[in-house]
């Protein structure tokens, strides 16, 4: 018999607690401002940050910077997704290839790639291409690794069905291997989105001439702390929306059964 699904917390409770968490964070911030317990250089007035955010959103420069950052993230992730899926698929075809490259991909997965960002600046300059390539390189490893692992570990019973029902090699790849590996592939893509997002912002802060990361770095280096916080706030909202969109796009249809 099918087991009864475990009852999870109600959505309204989850959202209520999320809002409460934000109230506590911003309330604590306002309290710290009011008591003067934290220096405004470290934690500026919340009201000043909010005013600065509204003002920034009225300026064309911020929207241009936002578009540049989003463009770098999306293109970088796109390149990583195509390359990662292709490499993962090719490596999964032969057990020897998987054995040779699995450790290498895993190593690339955990390597702090920001250490080599200066090389990207040398190779591709300070403009957009270095950010896109850096984001692509960061996101490539989790996507390729998960794709290879997912496609290599398809349960034998599914492949047996394909064999018994006369599936061609292409049909086996497309309908069985890709389907069975989908949760791992989607997980790799979701990780890739996060990696690309973090990498672009980091790259813009380390060496760039445009983008939200660059704006935040410029503001903080000039001690315009409320403006730096405002840019970071806009960045958080933008990346959250982008991640939410990608999460929705990459959600496994079967996940609804687990809820």
């Amino acid at each position, binding site marked *: 018999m*099918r087991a009864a699904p475990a009852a999870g917390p109600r959505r309204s409770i989850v959202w209520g607690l999320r809002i409460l968490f934000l109230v506590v964070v911003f309330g604590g911030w306002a309290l710290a401002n009011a008591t003067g317990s934290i220096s405004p250089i470290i934690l500026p007035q919340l009201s000043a940050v909010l005013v600065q955010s509204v003002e920034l959103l009225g300026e064309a420069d911020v929207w241009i910077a936002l578009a540049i950052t989003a463009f770098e993230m999306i293109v970088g992730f796109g390149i990583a997704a195509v390359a990662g899926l292709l490499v993962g698929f090719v490596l999964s075809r032969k057990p020897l290839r998987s054995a040779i490259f699995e450790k290498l991909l895993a190593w690339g997965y955990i390597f702090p790639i920001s250490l080599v960002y200066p090389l990207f600046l040398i190779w591709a300059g300070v403009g957009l291409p270095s950010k896109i390539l850096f984001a692509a390189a960061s996101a490539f490893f989790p996507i390729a690794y998960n794709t290879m692992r997912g496609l290599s570990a398809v349960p034998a019973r599914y492949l047996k069905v394909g064999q018994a029902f*006369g599936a061609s090699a292409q049909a086996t790849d497309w309908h069985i291997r890709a389907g069975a590996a989908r949760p791992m592939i989607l997980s790799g893509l979701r990780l890739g989105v996060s990696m690309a997002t973090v990498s672009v912002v980091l790259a813009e802060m380390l060496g760039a001439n445009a983008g939200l990361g660059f704006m935040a770095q410029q503001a903080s280096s000039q001690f315009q702390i409320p403006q730096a916080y405002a840019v970071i706030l806009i960045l958080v909202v933008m990346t959250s929306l982008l991640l939410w969109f990608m999460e929705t796009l990459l959600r496994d249809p079967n996940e609804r*059964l687990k809820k």
Partner: protein
Amino acid sequence: MTSHLNVDNLEIRYGDTAVEPAITGINLEIMQGEFVTVIGPSGCGKSTLLHAMGGMLAPASGGIYLDGTELTRPDPRQAAFVFQDYSLFPWKKVVDNVAMGLRFAGEDKKTALEKAAAELAFVGLGDKADKYPGELSGGMQQRVAVARALALKPKFLLMDEPFGALDEQTRRSLGQELTKILHDAGQSVVLITHSLEEAIFWADRIIVMKAGPGEVSKEIIVDEPWPRSLEFMTSERFENLRAELFHRIQPTTVSEAK
């Protein structure tokens, strides 16, 4: 034309260096519309025989012939499988799972989905087409697996302990229902089972196998008319057949245990 599946002096070995064949010297002839059950101790090669009948294992010697033509690779329109663990694709809807066998066999998507929907209705799951397998009970999932095989209108249905993963009550009720459907449709079936009751109650003929190496030790005809009632299961004849099967399987099992 009446189809028949002929197993001719079949021997299967796992690997070239295997000292003892998995099964050897198997000779069987299964006629269209016949319901054959195969029973024997664990490791006697029942599943090996079934996989060979479906063209999934290459014989070391001998062969499988369907209407005189040697079966050298899986052909689900000739012999389609139902596996113990259902092996449905959890990422596809029920109707797509049933259609998948047809798609693999070359049907276009629209036709495959129409036939799949009809086959689901045939096994009583017409209203579950848009569910995912994980939303169905074990018994329903096995019906979907049967529908997937039947959708191809195979000459022979090869069932490898199809009810082995179900609880006793579901196993009995689903078994009775499905075997009635298959008998009414005139479907030829070869069914592997561990259950003495299943082997007798559903069979026109029982193939008893012994282990070490796997061979056919006895064929028993069950000439009880269809449809079979529950009274047959409590009859003296049923008990006699059960006792005979028990004794035929028991010595091999005991020697294996030693």
